[in-house]
């Protein structure tokens, strides 16, 4: 079993797992940090951005570079449409991927890069909310960037990385960065998704069963269990044990996996989501009280639903119910509508509301009453009439490089009364703000990341007891932002294998068994022999039928292969049925012997039957009995050496050597077998057999 790691960001994971001949891709997260190196895309031309000075390298002036790179407050930005770093594919050909499993809508933004134009012909599985909300994320991303087309694309700078200032010079493989896909690719890609429910067992080419189980992180988020009947691999991506709106995490299904792959732990291990939420509410109230506006950059679904709920409640409690909230996104209407029809994917409290029947989320009521207004864009009809200050605006994109948020930062940035609150943990907020400097508006960082923190992760690992734990290397060291917190690491007594981008791991999973089925007609013929209490053995021969990776063992179709009155009868009657040549391939041993045989008894038995000249020789691992076909007494024994070389190296071996120099061999053989069989039946030695 092999694992290829294609992503450098544990929260935007993408790995390839090869198991039982099937190639899985686990998530296809898109690393978007690269967009921070680009200038924001405003809806209307911004004089400030247009007038930023070009960046000139220290050594030599390069007019090309100067055109592409702009400087703002000491940081250099690329003046070009933003580019993304899709998962790398040097070692794996995407056309060879059989199945893509998507854990949640935040881990699927690279999907069009992987499925379109690569020859990919496999299946993609995700839950219904993951697919529907994922569609919103993809549509918003494409819409935000396509709304603001740039005249030219910069690529010259990629040749001069070595002379560029940080962080640009540290960019990871900028030549492989790609511009965003278009809607055609998005639609084609999404059309490949097969929707699954939680705990639905998917059959993957008959070889493996794959199941999505609730991960508690967001609507429809899942972890995956890949099961071969004997070995189990659990893949844990974004998960949460906190109580928010999604269905709680299902841990039972992940227990006792042979391998547990763990990614997607919190990006803000030092911040507590609950206190951050409290701080956010207070900040909004205090800003609005003095007449300031609040901008909350956000994604179109997820924590934003909780923000609507908590914030409206808090504003009610401080007597500010009249402050309007605006939710601006190309998919705002879809997001609000869909969230209220996914009752089956919600926490019990929210789910129970539909039995009344009431909408599970209060934002349905908030938008009916006009407290929460949603628009596709700020220039959408109706926004300017409804716009009142002070107000709270929720809009994308959290990177502040495109989307309506760009406009609001430009609009409100110069007023100290206004506040921008960062809640999404994906982008370092100071980096996000850097092209807007100098900025006057207040900046508050309230990251709300409900994914597992290290304490929760360690507790989870203790409960799940995986055979081997596989995780990103960085989880074994304290985070960069808190190097002196040795408690912020994964700490476990389980065997650990770590990975980082571009690693190829061999995972310790040795398959020993395969499932099969035996037909009734065959089982009816088996008569197991109990060799020890609770352990029975029976020799079995069957026709192996393999199809769709499944094995069935059936009765051999030549029904009269063995006479019902077999071994003894065959010997005594002295007659054998004529067999066709093919039959011999189907005749397999019907019994094996075990235990020990009393040699003296055997010699006595055959001498009673007329074979009197048997010579017993003690061999290395048992006895060798030499018979010189008795009737003629012609000596001429086979040399002991030759015999020894034939005898199998095994304890409890009886080797009967019959020397036939006068065609009496057959008679001797029959006698010997008869005697043996009598002895075996007398149970001095046992057989396990199927007649």
């Amino acid at each position, binding site marked *: 079993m092999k694992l290829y790691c294609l992503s450098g960001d544990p929260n935007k994971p993408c790995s390839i797992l090869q198991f039982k001949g099937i190639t899985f891709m686990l998530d296809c997260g898109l690393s978007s940090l690269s967009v921070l190196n680009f200038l924001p895309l405003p809806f209307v031309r911004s004089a400030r951005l247009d007038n930023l000075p070009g960046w000139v390298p220290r050594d030599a002036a390069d007019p090309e570079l100067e055109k592409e790179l702009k400087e703002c407050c000491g940081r250099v930005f690329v003046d070009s449409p933003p580019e993304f770093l899709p998962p790398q594919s040097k070692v794996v050909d995407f056309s060879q991927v059989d199945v893509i499993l998507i854990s949640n809508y935040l881990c699927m933004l690279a999907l069009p890069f992987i499925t379109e134009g690569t020859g990919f012909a496999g299946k993609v599985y995700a839950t219904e909310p993951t697919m529907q909300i994922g569609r919103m994320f993809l549509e918003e991303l494409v819409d935000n960037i396509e709304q603001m087309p740039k005249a030219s694309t910069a690529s010259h700078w990629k040749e001069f990385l070595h002379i560029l200032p940080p962080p640009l010079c540290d960019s990871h493989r900028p030549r492989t960065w790609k511009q965003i896909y278009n809607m055609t690719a998005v639609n084609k890609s999404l059309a490949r998704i097969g929707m699954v*429910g*939680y705990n*639905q067992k998917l059959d993957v080419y008959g070889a493996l069963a794959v199941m999505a189980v609730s991960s508690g992180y967001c609507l429809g988020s899942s972890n995956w269990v890949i099961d071969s009947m*004997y070995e189990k691999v659990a893949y844990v991506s974004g998960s949460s044990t906190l109580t928010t709106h999604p269905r709680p995490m299902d841990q039972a299904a992940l227990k006792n996996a042979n391998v547990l792959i763990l990614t997607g732990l919190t990006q803000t291990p030092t911040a507590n989501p609950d206190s951050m939420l409290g701080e956010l509410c207070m900040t909004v109230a205090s800003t609005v009280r003095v007449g300031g506006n609040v901008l909350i950059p956000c994604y179109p679904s997820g924590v934003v639903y909780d923000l609507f709920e908590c914030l409206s409640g808090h504003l009610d409690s401080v007597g500010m119910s009249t402050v309007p909230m605006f939710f601006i996104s190309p998919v705002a*209407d*879809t997001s609000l*509508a869909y969230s209220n*029809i996914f*009752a089956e994917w919600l926490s019990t409290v929210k*789910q129970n509301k539909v039995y009344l*029947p009431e*909408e599970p989320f209060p934002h349905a009521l908030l938008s009916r009453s006009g407290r929460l207004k949603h628009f596709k864009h700020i220039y959408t009809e109706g926004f300017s009439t409804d716009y009142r200050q002070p107000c709270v605006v929720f809009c994308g994109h959290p990177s502040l490089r495109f989307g309506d948020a760009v406009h609001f930062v430009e609009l409100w940035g110069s007023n100290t009364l206004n506040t921008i609150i960062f809640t999404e943990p994906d982008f370092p907020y100071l980096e996000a703000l850097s092209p807007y400097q100098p900025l006057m508006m207040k900046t508050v960082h309230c990251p709300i990341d409900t994914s597992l923190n290290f304490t929760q992760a360690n507790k989870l690992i203790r409960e799940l007891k995986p055979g081997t734990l596989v995780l990103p290397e960085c989880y074994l060291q304290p985070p960069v932002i808190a190097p002196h917190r040795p408690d912020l690491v994964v700490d476990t007594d389980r065997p650990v294998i770590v990975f980082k981008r571009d690693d190829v791991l061999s995972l310790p999973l040795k398959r*020993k*068994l*395969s*499932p*099969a089925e*035996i*037909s*009734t007609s065959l089982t009816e013929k*088996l008569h*197991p022999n109990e060799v020890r209490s*609770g*352990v029975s*053995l029976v*020799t*079995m*021969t*069957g*026709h*192996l*039928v393999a199809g769709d990776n499944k*094995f069935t063992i059936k009765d051999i179709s030549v029904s009269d292969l063995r006479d019902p009155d077999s071994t003894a009868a065959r010997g005594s009657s002295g007659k054998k049925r004529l067999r066709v*040549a*093919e039959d*011999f*391939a189907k005749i*397999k*041993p*019907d*019994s*094996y*012997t*075990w*235990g020990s045989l009393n040699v003296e008894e055997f010699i006595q038995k055959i001498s009673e039957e007329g074979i009197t000249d048997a010579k017993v020789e003690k061999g290395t691992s048992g006895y060798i009995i030499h018979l010189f076909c008795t009737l003629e007494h012609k000596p001429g024994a*086979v040399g002991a050496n030759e*015999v020894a070389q*034939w005898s199998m190296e*095994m304890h*409890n*071996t*009886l*080797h*009967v*050597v*019959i*020397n036939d120099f006068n*065609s009496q*061999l057959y008679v001797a*053989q029959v006698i010997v077998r008869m005697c043996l069989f009598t002895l075996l039946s007398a149970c001095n030695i046992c057989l396990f057999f199927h007649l």
Partner: protein
Amino acid sequence: MLDIKVTPLGAGQDVGRSCILLSMGGKNIMLDCGMHMGFNDERRFPDFSYIAPDGPANNYIDCVIISHFHLDHCGALPYFTEVFGYSGPIYMTHPTKAIAPILLEDMRKVAVEKKGDSNFFTSQNIKDCMKKVITVTLHQSVMVDSKLEIKAYYAGHVLGAAMFWIRVGSQSVVYTGDYNMTPDRHLGAAWIDKCRPNILISESTYATTIRDSKRCRERDFLKKIHECIDRGGKVLIPVFALGRAQELCILLETYWERMNLKVPVYFGTGLTEKANNYYKMFITWTNQKIRKTFVQRNMFDFKHIKPFDKSYIDNPGAMVVFASPGMLHAGLSLHIFKKWAPNENNMVIMPGFCVVGTVGHKILNGIKRIEFEGRQFVEVKMSVQYMSFSAHADAKGIMQLIQYCEPKNVLLVHGEAAKMEFLKTKIEKEFDLKCYMPANGETCIIKSDINIPVSVSLRLLKEEAKKSNMLPPDPKRQRIIHGVLVSRDVSMCLMDVDEACKEAGINRHTIRFTSTLRLEDPGPATKTAEKLVQLMNTRLKDLPILFTDFTISVESVIVKVEASDDDQKTVYVSWDNQDEELGSHILEILKSVGN
């Protein structure tokens, strides 16, 4: 133990009070727990004393599965759990759990308050019963206990209707509940994968009907209504509050809009508005088209259809009223019917099936004078129309489902005996399957062939693959696997003999025979050996023969030619006891050369 037993307590050669007992692999499952709308006495509930003569069924039933919210499928549930006594698990889908208690309460009110029925369950009973319900989502595999697994499939009959696949060990049964194989205005078509159950228990309401195209029926329905209102008549459409009602509303709404009609359309109050809310929230259970457009416009926000008030009954002029219940056995629809029936301008459209004993059933059978309690008679002069809108699978649909899931046996329930008989013959003829149709209380015992699941050691499989790859390819040749089956506790594993002995902790005892032959064959010994290989190759097909220098081996049989250039060659033939037959056969072959 391998037999599967099916006993209908209701819906055996009948429609109404669906309740089927399934017994498989030591587990007992109750499929649906409905009531019969045509009876007012104890016959309305299934005869639960069959399960346990003196009450509580806990020890006899492992789980109850409810397919959908229609009362003939869930109407007896509160009685069974709260009055008769059952506290085990009950499974149903989310929409069923949301809607069933409302219909139950509605029916309870009609039964207790209007008919003065005692010995009925109470509101509290319904609430307590619903607390025991465990919801399932489509395709989710639910382990009821360590052996019993269930899984729901979309059935399309009403919102939240599901078919259930039930597995114990390697035996499985599919119970369809009521289902519909053609998508309608608000629901999708039933779907199931090729799960190859031992038994498919299918409803057969429309066992003999092959309905004409849906469009025609809809056009017909609209034409009849339009004609009636044109002559100033009133149209009564008795419906159940949920399900068919929503589909017909969508139909009428679009027609009214297109034809710009002004005649009022009313919807019986209370339940119905709430009902539409359920449809809005459970949009994921409706069909593709509605799901796609719901963000822009929710199909269940009706513009032309307004709530009905009882005072409108005697309003002059044309109107169309949807009123519940659908079989005219009680409530508002019956009330309106009594008022409007004597006028020949009016019309009643029965859009669904009516059980025996209801007013709906009577008028559909052409009875023109109906007696009510208190020797009250109503003359039926209004036009009575029947439209088959009930979303059941027709004969074609049932055959289609059989084709989808490939069962080994089919068992028909929820239909009339004569019609079932016809379908049974058809199924047996077309699919060559056994088909059963037990009556209520009659037990069907279905023997089933099952494959026993085992494990096979990969070493053994690889060894077999290696051997069969050595032979020239022949697709007709059977692959033979041979080993020792080790059973320990409940697990069984096929291994090669050495692995098996190790696993069982016993020592093998090998008995080996060696026979010596003299062959008259001048020339070098290698030549003799080659001749023997050729001979064995022709006489033993499909067995891999290994040959090195002077030694030939097949399985455990070893043939060795003594290296000497004498005219007479000494040949040793040796084999293990277990290969006696092959060994002596080879010896025979070699001896035949000597002669």
